[in-house]
Each structure stands twice: as C-alpha cells, then as structure tokens.
C-alpha cells in the first residue's frame, strides 16, 4: 500500500503545474463523491431487505468501496509525488551530464595545449633567437626597445651581429605566426629571454605593443624558468597579464639551449589560449534556445576557478566573469575532483536547480580545480514536453518499458488493482441487488455510479501515466541526442587538433632539409625529430615521412623502421592527397580503413605536404603522414558518451560512429553493432545534415531501442568527414 508520509511533491508545491493540479482536483473530487453514494447504499439496504445477512452483505460491500476509494485518494497523492520525482530525477541526471560534458570538453582541450607548448619550445628558430638575443643584449635593446616594432629589414649600416639578431627575431616571429595559423585557438604566442624581455610573438597586429615588454614578474614566466626539463610545463590560471587586455590563460615552459630537453634554461615560451572564445562556444552549447537562438531565461552555464570566481559565463550580464558565483557556497567549494553537487537555490531571482561538477582534469592533465555549473529554472524540470511526435510505440508499451522507474510501474499496478477491486465490488453489488428482486433494482444505479467513478478516476490516472511516460521518452531521447552530440563534438575537436598538428609539423626544418639533402644522417635526424614529437603526444601510433616517390624515408618508431623502409605508399590515398598540397595551411586525411602501414589494423591517417625550404607556399618534396591511434582513443570517447543511470552504464547501451557510407567505423558494442556493419536505424537519424541532431526508436534483432544521433559539423578549420555519432539504449 502506498504511503503518504514521505511525499515531497504535494499538490500545493508551487512546481506542480496548473493542469496537474486540475487533474488532481478532478480525481479526488470524483472519489469523494463515492462516499455519499455508499451512505445512500447503506440506507437503502435497510429499506429494501429485512434479511440481516443481505443487509450486512450490502454494508460490507459499501465499506469496501469506501476503503478502496480512500486508497485511491492516497495513491493519487503518491502518484503525483512519483510523477514529479521521476521528472526531477531524469532532469537532474541530464543536467549532471551536461555540466560534466562542458568541463570535460574544456579539459580535453587544455590537455592538448600542454602537449603543444612543450613541443613548440624545442623549435630551432626559437632557441636560436633567444641565444642570439642573450649574446647581443645591446643590439636587442636597439632593435626592440626604441620603437617596439617588428625588426626592420637589414640596413647597410647594421653590424653583422645586429643583422643576424634581426633575422633570427624575424624568423621566430614567422614561425610563431605559422603555429598560430595552424592552431587557431591562440590569441598570441610569445618567447622571452631569461631576463623576461619578449623578443618575438605570433600576432603581427599586436607586435608593436608586445615586443620589448618585460614579463619577469609574471607567474607563467617565473614558473616556466623553474621547470626541470622539456617534459614539464606550467599553466597560469585565468589572470591579468601585461601581454593582453582580456584575462589570460597562459601555458608556458622553458626554452633550453640547443633545443635539448635536458639543456640549460635560456628563456621561456608562453602561449595565450583563447579561453574566452573557446569557453563561450562550450558554455552556450547544450543550452535550450528560443526561436531567435537566444538561451532561455533562467538557464546559465558557467565555470568557476578554485577560488569560486566566475571565469567564463553563458550570460555575462547576470553572471559576470570575475565575480564570486552567486550560488550557495558549497557549490564553489567542492574539493574532490569529479565531485558533483545538486541542490535547489534562488539564482538571479529564480527558484533554480543548480548542478556543479568539479573537474578531474583529463588524462595526465590534472586541471586547475575548476568547476562547471549548470543552472536551470526549477519549473523547467517539470514542464510538459511541447513535442508530440508519434514514434510508433503504444502508451502501454512505453509504460512497461525500462524508461519508467519501477516505483512508478508499481503504482500503476496498484491503480490497476484498485480499479479491478472497485469493479469487482460493483458487480458483486449488482448480483446482490438482483437477488433482492424488484426491491434491489434501486441499488443498480448506485453500483453503476461506483463503477463509472472508479473507471473515470483510474482512467484519468492512466492518462497522466501515459503523459509521464511520453515525457520520459522525450527526456531520454534528448539525453541521447546530447550524448551523440558530445560524441561527435569530442571526435571533431580531437581531429581538429590532429589537422593542426600535421600542418605545423610538416614545416619542421629537419623534414624539409632531409628531403632536400637526402643523406642517411638527415633521415636519421628526421626520424629522431619524429620520435620526440611522438613522445610528447600520446595519440599517435607512428609518424612517417614519404619522399615524392612514395618511399618511406623516416618514421618515429625505430621498431617499425625496417619494415617501413621497404614499403612504397605511392598508391595510398593519404600520400596522394599530401602530394597535391602546395600551402602549409592545407592538410589531407584518409578516412578510417585498414592500412598495411599498421599490419592491416584500422587507421586514420592525416597528412601534410613538406614544402621546399619550409616555405608557407611552394613545391612539395614529400609527405608527412601521422597515424592516429584510432581504436585506443576513439573507444574511450564513445564509452564516455554512453547513457548512464547513477554512474552505471545502462544495460545494453551502446555508442558508435558511422562513416559517410553508413558503415560503423567504431563501436562500444562489437557484438550487436559491429564495425563494418550497417544498422537499420530510422531514416531521420541516418540522413542528417551537417550539425543536425535527431532521435527516434528502432528495432534491431527483436529488441526495441531509442537512439540519439548527431552529424559532424566539423570544428574550426577541420571540416569533418561526414561521420555521424549514434547512442542507443534498449527499452524493452
């Protein structure tokens, strides 16, 4: 029997919608009407029969009707409570996922930045520039300090030292620009001498005001000098810097003599990540919007730093960056990485649900102790879904599906039982009345009325249950859509980084020098450089260089070298694409397929053209191919996007990517959704346009699944390969 003592959402709770309050009133008032009818029945029993046994039987029946009516009133209260609890639980679970997705998205991005800065600091042009600047302090002052302008072209009167330094600074600026052109996530990149003087930067528009600035009192610079070797880096949390007006997030590491990872510290490199721009994209994502594309009122997404200050916000007007977050303190004082806190609070004048998720970093990057917060109006959790799409599933089937919590199913069964009991009592009453002959006929309308009331109230409750199951379906479909969007966004962002990597690496001096002067020593040097890159970045199986004939001449992994050196890749797509490249901002990609470069394992290969003299535009000498560690990196992404209940993956939940030919190219469930197979998913999910998402229901091998799907829209310069991410869960 249901119990009302733990009811959280009673009918006077302000979150109960008007429609539900009206439905509650209707049900209860109908049930209340039964009591006078029962009294009437008891009185009539005395009127129509002198037989005490018959009187007692009728009285017993009436009392049973009263009992079940009372029981239904109680169940109605419990039922509304459960209806709202189910909606609340489902909303909270989706909100938690959303808050987590956002912080995960940014942390994955920042992990890449830590790899970038460590590798870039080894660039020859940078340490050569710093070395020369250190040796020619006077000339440096003359070149930079007076005008803080880009070094002018060499004049006839300049000394050789001054002219060499000018050239070195010019080359360093050019190389920094190349990085920024390949990786468009940075506002600027700078290198500074050991005394803190900035001698080169990437952003030509700001160069006048940047070169010559002394950053020796900035934390990012000081900590960079303290790094022990080339594997260490420092990240300065969002704060003010002389280098730019907006608050900066700066990654830094030391520049070392001769580009040796263990070498003496000679200066520092700082890279200024466009946190505000990138953060804004992530914060605005996954938020409900009105028709004009504005985020709905009362919905906020923002990050706070370890001190509780807002560092990025979806609404700078209500939750401005720099302020302490207007939340109960416990929300920004979370201490344990991965900790989640959900509570109800007044935020910006609204009763809101507040979900906070403390970052746990990503992989080897431990993060800066940031927290992602999602705020939504409390009423949004309980709104009826406006969408009324027929997915071809009956309310009964939905009600019995796994989407509906067991407690709600039990209540449904209790309602059904009570309905059956009232029906049974009514019929038995009619039987008794019939036994009384003509005198009993006056009972029949009473029992008819009881049956009608029982049917109408339980019918109304079934309607509400059906509404609830439709809402639960909508919520779950939306959640799967979000997961699929997360899956495609994560892979797009990851592959954007690969596209950036290959473009920049292709310009490395060791590679074009080896192809221009093809000696064994030069190829050895190129292989060594590839080896250093591969040690800095964890996501590649191997990096290879092919000459213009398709012969592999260098690679990062020495254990593969003998096999690769006998190989000709001139017929392979990635090589042919690479040989078409004439500008350093271009790249090519060979979609996922089995490659003989990797013993016929599934590969995703990015390529960049190695151009003559490392120029930005020119003749291609050969191709750099980078072999993305596809399975090892893609599977954790997909696994992170699986539907979960209380952190446990839903039984039978699966996620997979499909390529443009609708074939599965990666999966979390090789048994039911194997690689290479096509799946009979709904056409709406199959035929999406770039950036679109959809959800639906389909049947596979006799099991009914719900599915959320999102098609790639690419990310920045990476245009995507037409892939679609799908996340499914069985419901029967």
């Amino acid at each position, binding site marked *: 029997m249901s119990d009302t003592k733990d009811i959280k959402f009673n009918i006077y709770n302000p979150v109960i919608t008007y429609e539900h309050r009206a439905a509650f009133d209707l049900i209860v008032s109908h049930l209340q009407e039964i009591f006078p009818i029962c009294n009437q029945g008891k009185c009539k029993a005395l009127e129509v029969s002198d037989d005490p046994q018959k009187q007692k039987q009728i009285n017993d029946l009436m009392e049973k009707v009263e009992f079940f009516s009372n029981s239904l009133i109680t169940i109605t209260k419990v039922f509304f409570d459960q209806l709202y609890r189910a909606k609340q639980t489902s909303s909270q679970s989706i909100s938690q996922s959303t808050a987590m997705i956002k912080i995960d998205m940014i942390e994955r991005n920042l992990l890449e930045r830590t790899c970038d800065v460590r590798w870039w600091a080894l660039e020859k042009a940078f340490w050569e520039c710093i070395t020369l600047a250190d040796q020619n302090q006077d000339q440096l002052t003359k070149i930079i300090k007076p005008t803080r302008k880009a070094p002018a072209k060499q004049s006839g009167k300049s000394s050789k030292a001054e002219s060499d330094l000018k050239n070195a600074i010019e080359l360093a600026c050019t190389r920094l620009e190349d990085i920024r052109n390949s990786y468009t996530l940075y506002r600027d990149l700078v290198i500074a001498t050991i005394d803190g003087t900035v001698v080169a930067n990437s952003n030509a528009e700001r160069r006048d005001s940047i070169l010559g600035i002394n950053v020796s009192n900035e934390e990012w610079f000081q900590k960079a000098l303290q790094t022990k070797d080339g594997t260490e880096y420092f990240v300065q949390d969002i704060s003010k810097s002389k280098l730019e007006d907006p608050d900066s997030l700066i990654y830094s590491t030391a520049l070392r003599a001769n580009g040796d990872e263990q070498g003496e510290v000679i200066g520092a490199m700082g890279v200024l990540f466009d946190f505000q721009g990138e953060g804004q994209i992530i914060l605005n994502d996954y938020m409900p919007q009105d028709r004009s594309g504005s985020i709905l009122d009362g919905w906020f997404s923002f990050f706070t730093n370890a001190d509780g200050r807002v560092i990025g916000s979806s609404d700078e007007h209500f939750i401005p960056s720099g302020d302490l977050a207007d939340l109960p303190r416990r929300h920004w004082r979370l201490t344990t990485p991965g900790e989640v806190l959900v509570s109800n609070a007044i935020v910006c004048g609204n009763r809101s649900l507040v979900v906070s998720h403390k970052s746990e970093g990503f992989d080897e990057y431990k993060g800066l102790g940031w927290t992602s917060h999602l705020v939504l109006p409390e009423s949004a959790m309980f709104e009826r879904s406006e969408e009324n799409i027929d997915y071809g599933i009956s309310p009964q089937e939905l009600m019995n599906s796994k989407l509906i919590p067991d407690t709600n199913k039990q209540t449904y069964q209790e309602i*059904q039982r009570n309905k059956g009991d009232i029906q*049974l009592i009514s019929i038995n009453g009619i039987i008794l009345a*019939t036994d009384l002959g003509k005198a009993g006929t006056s009972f029949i309308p009473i029992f008819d009325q009881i049956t009608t009331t029982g049917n109408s109230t339980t019918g109304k409750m079934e309607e509400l249950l059906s509404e609830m199951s439709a809402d639960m379906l909508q919520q779950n479909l939306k959640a799967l859509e979000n997961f699929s969007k997360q899956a495609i966004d994560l892979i797009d962002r990851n592959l954007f980084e690969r596209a950036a990597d290959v473009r920049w690496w292709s310009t490395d001096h060791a590679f074009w020098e080896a192809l221009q002067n093809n000696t064994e020593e030069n190829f050895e040097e190129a292989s060594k450089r590839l080896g250093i890159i591969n040690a800095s970045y964890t996501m590649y199986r191997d990096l290879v260089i092919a000459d213009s004939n398709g012969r592999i001449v260098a690679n990062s992994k020495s254990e593969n070298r003998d096999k690769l050196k006998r190989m000709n890749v001139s017929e392979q797509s990635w090589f042919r694409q690479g040989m078409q490249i004439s500008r350093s901002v271009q790249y090519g990609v060979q979609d996922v397929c089995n490659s003989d470069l990797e013993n016929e394992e599934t590969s995703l290969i990015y390529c960049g053209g190695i151009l003559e003299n490392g120029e930005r535009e020119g003749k291609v000498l050969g191709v750099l191919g980078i072999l993305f560690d596809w399975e090892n990196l893609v599977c954790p992404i997909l696994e992170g996007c699986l539907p979960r209940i209380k952190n446990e993956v839903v039984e039978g939940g699966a996620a997979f990517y499909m390529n443009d030919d609708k074939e599965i190219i990666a999966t979390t469930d090789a048994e039911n959704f194997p690689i290479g197979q096509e799946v009979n998913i709904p056409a709406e999910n199959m035929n999406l346009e770039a950036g679109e998402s959809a959800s639906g229901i389909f049947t596979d091998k006799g099991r009914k699944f719900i599915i959320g799907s999102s098609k790639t829209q690419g990310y920045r310069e990476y245009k995507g390969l037409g892939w679609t991410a799908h996340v499914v869960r069985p419901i029967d």
Partner: protein
Amino acid sequence: MLYSTFYLGETQMGLPIPSILEIGRGFDFHPVRGAPEVIDGLINLRGKVVTIINTGLAFETQKVLASDESRVYILKNNAELREVADADFDIETSPDNIGIHVDRIADVISVEKEELQPVPANINHPFYKHVVRRGNEFIIILEPQKILNLNENQELLS
C-alpha cells in the same frame, strides 16, 4: 436481464447475473489428486467447498492462468437460484456450487430477450446458448448448466 461479461482469451462471453453467487479473486486452489486437468482445484468459500473449473481447458483453448486480472465466478446451486426474489427466468445450474476461472471480467450488460440470437450453426458449441451483438462485437451467452455438469461432457473428464 443483466449479464456479467468476461473474456476468455479474446472472446467475450456472458453469464446471467442471477446465476452468479459472487465473483472473487485471489483464491487458493487446493489441488485434488486424480481430478481431471479441467478442474483447477477446490476452494473454501465461507465454509462451502466449491469446485473450480478452468474455463480455458473446458473450452479446449488455452488454460486460464491465475493473474492480477483473472477472476473466479462462483455460480449459485439450483437451491440458491430458487431463492432469488421475483425470479422471472428459466435458468438451471447444478446441485452444487461450482466456480469457473476466467481470464478477466468486463462490463455488466443489460440484454432484452429479443436481443438474444441463436448461435450460428458453424460455431456451435455445447456450452453456448445465445449470441448478443453489441456494436461490432459479439458476446456469447453461456449455458451455465452445461458447463457445470461436466459429467454430461465425459470427453472433458478423460
């Protein structure tokens, strides 16, 4: 006359209300060793021993299984039938109270005599007495005496 209707599988059937003593659910059936399979068992109804027939097996369809929806019709015996006040019907049951186990109950319907139609020859069955049409649905009115006196239907007992 009023009829209580119920379902056996997808077929709707009816019994005259005066023939019913009461309808119940959740009875414990006591199995009887050696009894034919069509007998679900015995129940104790306020001191009376009542034999319960599984209607599904009686109609040689699918056995009615006890469930939240299944119900037991306890039919009056002939003596009880005669006690019904102002009786204006011609129904016989059996000398003993006997129950029938059905899949689920449905509405009580009122049927005028002229609505009772003979059972078409091609669906004839010893237990069927009449057919009533309600909209597009047909309700088969049963002959209680035939179901209850199984001794006259020896094949069911074999």
